[in-house]
């Protein structure tokens, strides 16, 4: 039995969540569905940690589905980059579950709660599948599993604008996914293979053909839509703002991050050997867009009155940080991007959790309704401040570490514009975080405001866990950095 489990760990990572989703559907009872979903996500976290340990010891793990050898069968290929993503997704997922208990009960009608957990598990299955698969078409299927379930989860929001946000995301997301399969089709036409490792050996010989270049273009734009790269980000602010709090937390922590990973996989593992990144200006294009995202989105965030929307725009800016690290195509730059992906997932999930706590108590996330909130909800607001420090990049926080390495990588490359953009964007972050802090700490509460209490412990503990972990990795930065450097080397293997 243990032998069976240990040989099929890679498959179990995806299959468990896929099987548990219909179980939630059959149970129908909210509590039972919560228990199933929590148990499964925690088991998945355990599996992900075991896989990460195995990869650290033995380099790449390969698992052939159904025993069919690649390139005919689908293979799961776990290197350091994918193992790292598995840990991020399951880690955020496990922290969200205890938090979800009270938050979901308050925000989603009782008769729909079991459906929410069903969608949540499907979403996790899709995200994990993207991280683990070694087949480009299989990646498309998982991408759509995770996207379709996130449209449903967003539409569960109380506000009617959640429906239109979900609809617009569906339109944009489907266009993105369709672009992606057009790219895969062109790639298949030129090579006759769908296996990533196999493609990496076949593409260099025909790298200059127009078919391959078109395929790269379609895939870049398609995944750019999914990862909300400015100017393809229009769906994101509304989706994060109007989704239920738990969904915002989970999507902000994982949804766009996995699309970044997919882009890394395709551009570096599949096309990397062909050197197309430098040769055709993709690096310049991505870094230019990243600079616009960093400064533009941060500037827009300053003027938001809804704090969830403010955090959504801040997320767009953070995606800019990640992309610029990747666009540098140096080991240092890419590992800084990957570390920032991890750190930002923790910090932003923590900040959205603080918003969920506030929404639970005052029923609003408008900045004007938060006057003097620090006096009645000190624990929540302290978490917001601590997370805000991370976003700004104050020393001792995880945000500082990733920005520090990003700056070093930019200096190494001599990209002065990028350095300026990183610093300006951080200054803008101080302004938008300070606006919230100032309102909550230094303004008095309205006299006729209802008396409220601190959020329940079941929500405070997961929130502080994420914030605490982000501080932990701010101090013990070498642990994440070592993994990220390994992941970057695995991805850049084709280039250097």
């Amino acid at each position, binding site marked *: 039995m243990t032998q069976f489990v240990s040989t099929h760990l890679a498959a179990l990572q995806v299959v468990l969540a896929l099987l548990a989703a219909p179980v939630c559907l059959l149970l129908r009872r909210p509590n039972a569905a919560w228990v199933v979903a929590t148990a499964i996500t925690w088991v998945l976290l355990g599996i992900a940690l075991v896989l990460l340990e195995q990869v650290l010891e033995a380099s790449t793990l390969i698992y052939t589905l159904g025993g069919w050898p690649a390139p005919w069968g689908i293979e799961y290929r776990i290197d350091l980059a994918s193992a790292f993503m598995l840990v991020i997704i399951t880690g955020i997922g496990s922290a969200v579950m205890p938090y979800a208990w009270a938050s979901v009960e308050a925000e989603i009608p009782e008769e729909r709660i079991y459906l929410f957990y069903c969608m949540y598990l499907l979403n996790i299955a899709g995200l994990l599948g993207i991280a683990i698969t070694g087949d480009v078409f299989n990646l*498309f299927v998982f991408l759509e599993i995770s996207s379709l379930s996130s449209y449903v989860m967003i539409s569960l929001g109380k506000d009617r*604008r959640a*429906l*239109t946000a979900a*609809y617009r995301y569906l339109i944009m997301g489907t*266009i993105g996914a*369709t672009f992606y399969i057009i790219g895969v*089709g062109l790639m*298949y036409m030129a090579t006759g293979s769908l296996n990533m490792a196999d493609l990496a050996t076949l593409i260099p010989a025909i790298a200059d053909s127009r078919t391959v270049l078109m395929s790269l273009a379609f895939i870049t734009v398609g995944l750019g839509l999914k990862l909300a790269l400015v100017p393809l980000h229009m769906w994101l602010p509304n989706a994060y703002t109007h989704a239920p709090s738990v969904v915002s937390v989970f999507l902000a922590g994982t949804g766009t991050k996995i699309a970044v990973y997919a882009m890394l996989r395709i551009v570096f593992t599949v096309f990397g050997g062909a050197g197309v990144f430098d040769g055709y200006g993709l690096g310049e294009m991505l870094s230019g867009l990243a600079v616009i995202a960093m400064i533009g989105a941060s500037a827009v965030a300053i003027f938001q009155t809804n704090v969830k929307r403010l955090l959504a725009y801040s997320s767009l800016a953070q995606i800019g940080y990640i992309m610029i690290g990747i666009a540098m195509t140096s080991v240092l730059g890419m590992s800084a991007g990957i570390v920032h992906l991890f750190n930002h997932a923790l910090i932003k999930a923590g900040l959205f959790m603080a918003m969920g706590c506030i929404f639970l108590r005052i029923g609003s996330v408008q900045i004007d309704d938060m006057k003097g909130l620090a006096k009645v909800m000190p624990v929540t607001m302290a978490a917001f401040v601590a997370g805000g420090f991370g976003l700004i990049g104050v020393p001792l926080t995880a945000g500082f570490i990733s920005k520090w390495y990003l700056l070093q990588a930019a200096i190494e490359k001599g990209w002065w514009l990028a350095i300026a953009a990183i610093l300006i964007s951080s200054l803008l972050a101080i302004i938008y975080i300070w606006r919230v802090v100032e309102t909550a700490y230094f303004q008095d509460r309205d006299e006729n405001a209802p008396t409220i209490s601190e959020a329940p412990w079941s929500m405070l503990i997961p929130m502080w866990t994420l914030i605490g972990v982000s501080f932990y990795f701010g101090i013990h930065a070498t642990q994440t950095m070592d993994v990220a450097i390994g992941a970057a080397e695995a991805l850049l293997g084709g280039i250097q």
Partner: protein
Amino acid sequence: MDFFSDFPGLLNYWVVIVLMMIGFYIVIAHDNLVKKIVGLNIFQVSVFVFYITMAKIKGGTAPILAEGITTYSNPLPHVLILTAIVVGVAMTALGLALVVRIRDAYGTIEDDEIQAQESEDL
């Protein structure tokens, strides 16, 4: 005449491009939410045709193991497209379900009218 001996030649690929552009244009240009989904479907169908076309081999038959059959179409893209069709159906169903809910909430399925109502909400 090359055209007749080659028929259909690249005709299918032209059809793909035309369908793709029609679908994409509808998604962008139309305000009606149902029409947008129709456009998205046309857009996806063009990709399905693209996959099926590239699987075809001149003079090839259906991919069945039988005596006397040596050239046959590549079955893999067919299978891929079966999966993509399922994904497309799920997308359509979900999109239409959302449109029904949007109509309940806003009383309209015209994007500009919805946006007008949303700016009042703020």
